[in-house]
């Protein structure tokens, strides 16, 4: 019986069928569901690790003890884990070790659009790239076999349209690995990467790549050639192959299941069998550059196909129809111009605790060094309350560094903001630096009790494991004091005035400080009963009092809108319209009522 699974679920299934024993991940779109799914299989130990570097190191330890292990992350996560990866490439593995990296072409949920295929050549480890759920499962399984056979970590590259696409597959049974469990002290020269041993392993890495290249050409079952109409041959991989096959099904294809090392003989044969070759790949010209370097003439590639953003069947068709079919691409009829329609960017949820906090920061006129999480949505107007954001933890160091240039001039003007999960991911190091090297910046930890943006994953601060079992809970205040922060305050962000007072005091202090939000769980986190603390189920606008000043619109709440219409208040103030609260969307957080200067926002009645 065929099942339909999401790509991420299929990777988890493949790992389970391959007999994996340990799975580690830090959540990140589009990779998060892999570990969430794997955690449902009882035979496997799984965890949310504090960050991706830790995930890879834990999984490698498990592999050295003889267990098959998997570590999963989004593309930027592999930057964090690059340090262990580059040397695990030298030490090799014992139990099969697979690292899944999920790219996000088009940047649906990411701060950059890096092409993770570069890691495979750079790290000198093989990489596989599935196109759909069936391949996600099969490639994961073969990745474990390759890992053990060639003594190497294996990268499995997914991306948004593979990870978050559902397609059909056949399920298999679990088969345990035959690798013996246990640690062997005699392996020291292979595993302790001091220079004298690492130089030896350096050679082994190059020898391994030669063997893997031969394997890619002769044994690996997922590099495949389809010779149809030989006038044009496409070389492609992953979902780009599916798009091209969809648009130009009658031509010939070389589909690469292994990104690197490339099957040189197969490529040579393909060039002999077809007349002209077009390389279709998303993002960078990885294959194109390699194939050109082998001395072949690539007819078309990135000269026609965009290197920025994700591909789609439409983009493949638009880019290549002229070259392939000799006729111009005919666009479908335009009935309206979508650019004339109001855009709908994502927004903080109604009742979210980040909204009043960022409103407070805006009112204080602070330059906010931000971070990665839902709160990055505070950058959107009219809240417009974030001014710099690069990667996880970066805001803490950024605010501190800016203070080093501005000196006393910067006092009262700068702060760093990050979430509970990102603080644990990589905010502690820069906080230590701020204290150790005498910075004065204020770090705000927005503790909403969960990794929210990626879909409610646990972390060391929530008190729960990935399987919802009890766990030690980090105490942020004690942690901050332990690294030497003397001024640690807690605020309830739903009390706007009090929160502003505390922040004002701390940002003006010539010493490092930390402010932690409390009573501020994610509005979607059911177990924290986030709505119970609100006194009223929803609020409404009292039209007798509303003067149409639009202050309530400044917080960009999805429940509040402007209603045009001239009129006046009961006491005779003329107005051009009023605020309006949609009671289906309002959850009663009361923030708008607190900032209204005319007491025009009142508890709603049914």
């Amino acid at each position, binding site marked *: 019986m*065929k099942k*339909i699974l999401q790509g991420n679920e299929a990777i988890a299934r493949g790992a389970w069928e391959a007999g994996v024993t340990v799975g580690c991940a830090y959540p990140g*779109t*589009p990779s*998060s569901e892999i570990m969430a799914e794997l955690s449902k299989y009882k035979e496997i130990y799984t965890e949310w690790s504090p960050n991706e570097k830790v995930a890879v190191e834990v999984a490698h330890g498990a592999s050295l003890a003889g267990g098959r292990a998997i570590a999963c992350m989004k593309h930027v996560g592999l930057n964090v884990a690059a340090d262990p990866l580059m040397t695990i490439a030298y030490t090799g593995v014992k139990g099969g070790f697979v690292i899944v990296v999920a790219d996000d072409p088009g940047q*649906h*949920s990411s701060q950059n659009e890096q092409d993770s295929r570069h890691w495979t050549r750079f790290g000198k480890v093989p990489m596989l790239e599935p196109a*759909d759920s069936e391949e996600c499962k099969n490639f994961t399984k073969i990745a474990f076999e390759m890992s053990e056979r060639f003594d190497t970590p294996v990268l499995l590259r997914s991306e*948004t*349209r593979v990870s*978050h*696409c*559902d*397609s*059909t597959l056949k399920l298999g049974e679990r088969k345990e690995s035959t690798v013996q469990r246990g640690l062997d002290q005699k392996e020291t020269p292979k595993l302790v990467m001091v220079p004298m041993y690492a130089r030896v392993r350096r050679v082994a890495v190059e020898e391994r790549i030669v063997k893997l290249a031969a394997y890619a050409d002769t044994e690996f079952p997922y590099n495949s050639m389809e010779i149809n109409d030989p006038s044009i041959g496409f070389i492609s991989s992953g*979902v780009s192959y*599916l*798009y091209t*096959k*969809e*648009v130009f*099904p009658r031509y010939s294809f070389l589909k690469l299941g292994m990104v690197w090392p490339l099957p040189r003989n197969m490529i040579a044969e393909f060039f002999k069998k077809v007349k002209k070759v077009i390389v279709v790949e998303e993002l960078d010209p990885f294959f194109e550059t390699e194939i050109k370097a082998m001395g072949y003439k690539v007819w078309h590639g990135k000269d026609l196909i965009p290197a920025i953003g994700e591909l*789609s*069947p*439409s983009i493949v*068709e638009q880019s290549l129809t002229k070259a392939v079919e000799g006729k111009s691409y005919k*666009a*479908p*009829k*335009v*009935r*309206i111009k*979508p650019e004339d*329609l*109001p*855009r*709908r*960017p*994502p*927004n*903080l*949820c109604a009742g979210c605790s980040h909204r009043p906090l960022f409103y407070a920061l805006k009112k204080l006129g602070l330059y906010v060094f931000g971070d990665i999480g*839902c709160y*990055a*949505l505070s950058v*959107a*107007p*009219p809240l417009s309350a974030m001014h710099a954001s690069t990667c996880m933890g970066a805001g803490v160091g950024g605010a501190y560094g800016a203070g080093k240039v501005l000196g006393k001039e910067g006092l009262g003007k700068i702060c760093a903001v990050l979430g509970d999960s990102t603080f644990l991911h990589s905010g502690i190091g820069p906080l230590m630096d701020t204290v150790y090297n005498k910075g004065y910046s204020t770090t705000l930890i927005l503790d909403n009790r969960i990794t929210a*943006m*990626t*879909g409610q994953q646990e972390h060391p601060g929530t008190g729960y494991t990935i399987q919802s079992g009890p766990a030690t809970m980090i105490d942020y205040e004690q942690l901050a004091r332990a690294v030497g922060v003397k001024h640690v305050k807690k605020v309830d962000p739903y009390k706007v005035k009090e929160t502003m007072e505390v922040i004002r005091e701390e940002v003006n202090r010539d010493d490092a400080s930390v402010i932690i939000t409390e009573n501020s769980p994610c509005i979607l986190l059911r177990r924290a009963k986030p709505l119970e603390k609100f006194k009223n189920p929803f609020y409404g606008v009292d039209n007798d009092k509303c003067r149409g000043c*639009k202050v309530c*619109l400044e917080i*960009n709440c*999805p429940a*509040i*809108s*402007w209603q045009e219409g001239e009129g006046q208040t009961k006491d005779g103030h003329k107005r051009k*319209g009023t605020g309006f609260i949609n009671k*289906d969307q309002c959850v009663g957080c009361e923030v708008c009522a607190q900032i209204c200067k005319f007491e025009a926002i009142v508890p709603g009645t049914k």
Partner: protein
Amino acid sequence: MKENGKVKNIFLSGVGGQGTILASNILAEVFLKAGYDVKKSEVHGMAQRGGDVTTHFRFGKKVYSPLIKYGDVDYLISFEMLEAARYINWVKPEGKIIINKQEILPPTVSLGQMEYPKDIEKMFKKYFKDNVWIVNGQEIARKLGNIQAANVVLVGAFSNFFPEFKEEQWTDAIKKLLTAKLHELNIKAFHEGRKALQG
């Protein structure tokens, strides 16, 4: 499986939180059980926070691309008026369209900077004539006791396009995907939606 297994394209659009993913999961269950190859693609994560969300859903004998080609949509199911308008160019001239009669204001409209487009219904009827159905999913769901079920009302309306599927094929899928305490509400929502197009 009918129509020689030629691949058909369903495009779902709405606003994050409206339940497009559940709706597309119900479709997947039904078409898969009926013997079709199915692929569907959607975006999770940041975009879901009140932003516009879409699902590409394709079925047929053998489906390659998980994404639909621009202009190739056979069925558009929209959970919100503006989010229907945004994808009008994607629909084939003979395509069929179901729209939930709900307006969720995007920020620029809430702030009074832009107007919510009027005459969306009229525009669809101009191009697609009798192949457009506006369903008041939210009101139907509200009467049943939970506005969250509007997505299943729309699935019920859509089910009319596939007379070869029995009602149980849809309700079985709903039962499989939802916890028991939600069965009654959502099966009612499905039936009301199914009736909405017939009456």
